[in-house]
């Protein structure tokens, strides 16, 4: 609840300042380059990894990347880079 409030304040501040919300809140920033590379910057982890699906844990969000020949170029505590043919990226809201 406290986290939700903090994120709400961060969103309001970001909207007022006209900057991305990641400046004020510790949220993952997702970027997709040409359907072959996906980068997540911010706190993240890997829940599931197969050649066709990667389930990324981004705190409040979960990211499900589907495709073929997927592989993880780099995984760190603050960044992740997945490569391969990306067919879809789904965002799931974590329960609670």
């Amino acid at each position: 609840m406290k986290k939700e409030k903090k994120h709400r304040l961060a969103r309001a501040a970001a909207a007022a300042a006209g900057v991305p919300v990641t400046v004020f809140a510790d949220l993952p920033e997702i970027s997709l380059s040409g359907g072959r590379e996906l980068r997540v910057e911010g706190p993240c982890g890997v829940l599931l990894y197969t050649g066709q699906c990667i389930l990324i844990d981004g705190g409040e969000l979960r990211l499900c990347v589907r495709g073929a020949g997927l592989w993880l170029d780099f995984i760190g505590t603050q960044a992740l880079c997945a490569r391969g043919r990306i067919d879809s990226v789904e965002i799931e809201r974590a329960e609670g």
Partner: protein
Amino acid sequence: MWRYIGGFVTLWVTDARPERFLRLCLRCGVGVRGVRRQEDGLRLSVRAGACGRLLTHAERLGIEVEVLRRQGLPFLLQRLSVRPVLAFGLPLCLLALSAASLFLWDVRVVGAEGAQARRVLEALRERGVHVGTYAEGVDAESLQNELLVALPELKWIAVNIRGSRARVHLRLRDEGPEPLPAAPADLVAERDGLITALAVFSGTAAVQVGDTVAAGDVLVYGYETDVSGVRTPVRAEAWTRARSWLSLRAQTDACVRRVHYTGERRQTLWMVFGKKLQKIWPWSRIYPSEYDTITVRESASLSLGLLREVDRTYTTVLCPYEQAGQVLYAALRARAESIGGEVCSESFSLTEGESAVTARYECECMGPIGTALEKDG
């Protein structure tokens, strides 16, 4: 690059849920690279420094991990440690290669071939530029100037030094046109004199040994006569010797200034490193107001050597009347020798005026007297 220097280990995770190992890595703060799913496991690489810790934790958690390959500089050094000759030989070899790149290993001449190219290479060698010369020590500009003076057949020359290669680009002078045939001319006396020797090479002699001639008199006619009496014009040539008398005059101020060395000499030593000079001794000095410097370079090669400068202090002094006369005598005698040849006898007299000294020099000379006078038409 940094990854290679630090070293990295490729692991093979054969656990039923290999994601557990990825989470373990993140929990330990270790980044993972190149994660690829294969049929029966996960292949990934981590930095070498964290590998031991990760394997310990994985064993405790029951995750099956196998080391596939160790790569990078630390492992290379570890392997080389059992071969010390190779371990020391490789850096030594690299060091020798980098040191060798400071010297010239290829000196070529572009624009000339054969004997001419060899002559240029020989001239370069005489000036210390050859295979094995320290490249930085070669002053290309002064070398070009020296070669242009030393080899008159060169039109222009450029010395380019790139790394260990020296390229000497040059152009040779074009051969001049064929000289024109000599125009017919008489040989005439350029001053009054008494002929003491005459050897005619071409033309017809007009005078004999013992004859007295005035300036402008013909010594050898510019023609030759064949047996039938036909005259063919030629350029008269002869070796002549004549006794002649000269009278010269010169004037100067009553007093002249002359350099007088005080005998004080000071030496400065410089070390030469390529194109740079470093003073060795003395570090500082107060220079006199009037001095001249003699520079002597003593060097084994162009790159390294010793430079010695000797400063001689002098003063200028006003010379009295007699010394002014000595100056005039030396000047007049030199002029007489240039006109009449060897001086056989001489007389010199000085007349002192109010503000000037007048010198009169008379001499008897022995030397060549003939000069060519081309015929009109």
